[in-house]
């Protein structure tokens, strides 16, 4: 029981850091995935006096991945009932060309502004519709969401680090006497600190494996899967190799840093 208690305080603190960190990663991935969906659905309409190819558009601004000419047939068809067919043909020739431009990624408001300006600098392009108002609102909402999650993660980190520093004082008190006694019998620094580092490493491993279990469970939980399906994105909630290695590394760094601070702060009693 005493042994469990020894581990529990640091394990819980580490687990909350790892949990909030992984949640931040999930949100980041979700936003990126959503941005791809938005980019696929989002397009800019350009009106040109002459025919332009996809590569012509790509040379205007690299953000343009593809350009498709919109057919004017439906417009002409509506008008042909009132005008002669020869006039309709003439009209078709004089009508400007409409292009739907798809982009490599979901643009920032600055990129949209730049794109609009680059397109209008091209002499043949007479009009650009970027739907910037709708676009800005969606983008700002995404950014707001990301910022709120980042803020939440930072708050969790700060609170948990404060808890860890409190734990550090308890550890310092608990281990000081043993380290002093070992020092009085000539134990080298590594030997005096061995118990502390072993405890820190074991706690980091426990917290990492607990986080691994929690996220493996969450990643396959139908409620979580359903939430992502609802917004039409597919996100890797937890990569058992890459994410676990990141979690393990963070847990190890924090706990070893904690142990090192205790060793550095240790003052031998005379």
């Amino acid at each position: 029981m005493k042994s469990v208690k020894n581990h529990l305080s640091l394990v819980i603190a580490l687990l909350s850091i790892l949990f909030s960190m992984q949640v931040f990663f999930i949100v980041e991935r979700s936003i990126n995935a959503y941005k791809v969906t938005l980019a696929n659905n989002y397009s800019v309409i350009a009106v040109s006096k002459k025919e332009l190819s996809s590569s012509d558009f790509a040379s205007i601004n690299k953000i343009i991945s593809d350009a498709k000419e919109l057919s004017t047939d439906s417009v002409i068809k509506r008008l042909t009932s009132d005008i002669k067919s020869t006039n309709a043909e003439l009209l078709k020739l004089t009508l400007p060309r409409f292009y739907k431009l798809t982009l490599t990624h979901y643009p920032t408001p600055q990129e949209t502004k730049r794109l609009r300006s680059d397109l209008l600098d091209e002499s043949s392009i007479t009009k650009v519709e970027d739907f910037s108002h709708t676009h800005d609102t969606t983008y700002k909402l995404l950014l707001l969401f990301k910022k709120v999650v980042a803020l939440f993660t930072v708050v969790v980190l700060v609170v948990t680090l404060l808890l860890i520093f409190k734990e550090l004082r308890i550890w310092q008190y608990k281990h000081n006497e043993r380290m002093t006694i070992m020092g009085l019998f000539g134990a080298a620094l590594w030997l005096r600190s061995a118990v502390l580092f072993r405890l820190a490493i074991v706690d980091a491993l426990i917290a990492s494996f607990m986080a691994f279990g929690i996220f493996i469970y969450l990643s396959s939980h139908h409620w979580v899967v359903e939430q992502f399906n609802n917004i039409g994105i597919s996100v890797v909630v937890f990569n058992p190799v890459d994410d676990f290695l990141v979690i393990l590394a963070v847990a190890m760094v924090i706990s070893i840093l904690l142990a090192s601070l205790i060793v550095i702060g240790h003052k031998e009693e005379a």
Partner: protein
Amino acid sequence: MDKVIVAKDLSLSYSSNETIINKVNFSVGTGDFVFITGASGSGKSTLLKSLYGALKPKQGSLIVGGVELNGVSRSKLNFLRRHIGIVFQDYKLVKEWTIDKNIMLPLLINGYVKNVALNQVDKLLKHVRLNHQTGKYPLELSGGEQQRVAMARALAHNPILILADEPTGNLDEYSSQLIWNLLEGANTQLKTTVIVVTHQIPKTLNVDYKHFHIEYGSIHEIR
């Protein structure tokens, strides 16, 4: 006779404005049994602390086991301490370790193989008459028993020097006598140098001992 301790113009203090031991000169030979006496606050324990490097000399030279302690490096100090056995008035046992592990501490620090160390611990527990208490934690034992554990720990690695700070200060007669017998045995049988800080020299001791008395920051060799 080889000297285990040589102090030349040694001054000790805890702060810059107060000197506790002032420019003293003394030496202790290999196999000596030395008592250091003095009134409370005279600097007996301070002097003992300086002998295991817990207090650095303010001035002068202090050589213990061939190691100059004035300006000694941490690694040299560790090396020296591995050859010293210390008995503290407050025992200084690791509470979360069993008494066996406490006794094993200097053996493990000195690189003994675990099985050899365990055998040595068994012998020592019998030696201090605590073999029936094996596996217990220090706080489960009486003060006298804890001091006997501390004594066993000090003897475990056959040190060249044993430093004892009022080792029988709070003990009953039986435990006190046992401690003196153990110190006497280490000195006569193993030729271990023993330095004991005490208020009162026991009358029943069967060794030829030296007696240093500290007064007003000076050391006087009485015997």
